[in-house]
């Protein structure tokens, strides 16, 4: 299973990348896309939306199931990957390249994220 060491993770299968401008990029993990199967629809949040930690803010739907994607921390959505609307299968092809949305975390927001090793352990147990 592909779990890049330079990303952070949540136990609900989002990956998080720290950007140099202070924002963080969020997607779903390779494990998650494999579990869902072929994705056919992705709904992304509005840019500018304020989200709270743990809030459902995107939906990914495969042929077999619909799943919510949660904000790993509180903040404001500053960008979304609109390319996915026309090509949801891009997430199946490259889960870490096909990001979903980018959040600028609130001041003082302390996200509790997993490193690659901890995430690997988490999915091994599930």
């Amino acid at each position: 299973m592909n779990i890049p060491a330079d990303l952070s993770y949540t136990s609900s299968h989002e990956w998080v990348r720290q950007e140099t401008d202070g924002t963080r990029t969020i997607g779903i993990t390779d494990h998650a896309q494999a579990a869902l199967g072929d994705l056919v629809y992705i709904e992304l949040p509005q840019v500018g939306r304020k989200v709270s930690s743990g809030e459902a803010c995107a939906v990914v739907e495969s042929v077999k199931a619909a799943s919510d994607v949660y904000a790993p921390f509180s903040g404001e959505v500053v960008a979304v990957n609109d390319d996915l609307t026309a090509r949801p299968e891009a997430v199946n092809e490259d889960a870490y390249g096909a990001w979903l949305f980018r959040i600028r975390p609130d001041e003082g927001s302390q996200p509790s994220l997993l490193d690659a090793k901890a995430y690997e352990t988490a999915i091994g147990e599930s």
Partner: protein
Amino acid sequence: MQESAEGRREKGARSAAERANSRKRSTQRGLPDRRAQRVALTGAIDVLKQTTLNRIHRAANARMVDFGGWDMPVHYGSQIDEHHAVRRDAGMFDVSHMRVLDLEGAGARDFLRHALANNVDKLAARGKALYSCLLRPDGGVLDDLIVYFLTDEWFRIVVNASTAEKDTAWLRDLIDRGGVALSLTVRDDLAMIAVQGPHAREKVWQVLPQARGATEPLKPFNAAIVDDLFIARTGYTGEDGFEIMVPDARAEALWNALAAAGVPPCGLGARDTLRLEAGMNLYGQDMDESTSPLESGLAWTVDLGSPRDFVGKSALTASAPARTQVGLLLQDPRGVLRAHQVVHTAKGEGEITSGTFSPTLNRSIALARVPRGVEVGEEVQVQVRERKLAARVVKPPFVRNGRVLVDK
């Protein structure tokens, strides 16, 4: 990320009774080496049954799921690619989890006249198949099945995996109460491989040239016995093809030979999207013991015209059904139709019984149970999360033999 309620429901929870049944069976049959273990949500150790081809699926890295108590492949990489393979060329499915029952004895036909909602008197030629519901006295659907006429004293019945124990017990009880000398044998020595698609039959003949003579003349819904193989021109995909029953010991060799002939393995995921495009019901979703076949799109299989009496007939004729089954084609691209979503119509509320994304139509389709009087061509609204999405009522099937049959 977490699956929504819709997603969780769609996977289909097994009842406590079913779990208890599968534990009981595994103890009785004593074949732990053929079974995978898992921890159920309750914390109790539960056992999934395996088909004889299980090892091959796992070696092929198939994604496995619990399907009616069986450890089955849902796909081998891409469900959509497997779907297209069947519509455009050929694909094969391990359907050995379905149960084959042989009903033998002098009164077999008379018994089935009484037990089944469809009329076995339609079966005149040897090898002819009939699709029928098995009903409760109150008209609820116990299962849907295919029965093959082989000789006057031998009918072969194929029932669903998740209902196999229930059906077998039900039929045995009916036999006992009828006081006729009939035997009902569970043929768990047979595996079943469905080879489906426009080129499926040619591929089967490449691999089984000795079967060509007997199976080339077969019309759809007819079967032939070739040595130890039972080959039926039936399926659950809306495409041409064969369902082949083969002794367990030879199943792996047949599967490998078909693969070598260029037939890709396909999982139950593609089987579900193919059957839904073909407008075919799935037991437990589109009908069950609480629904009448007349409100599940199955009136064509219920023989109310003949004077013959059968289990469930009086209940079905007692009152007109208030609901009807329709097909839905999603007009709004912002979501996917799923089982249990509410359908708002001018005649009142209905519910989706099966929904998916259709790879052939490249949009979402569904079967729904709605108030009687909702007409083909009408626009309805389906509640998908916080939105009401527009869908058009259509007459299933959506796709048959590679052709789209509804206007997008």
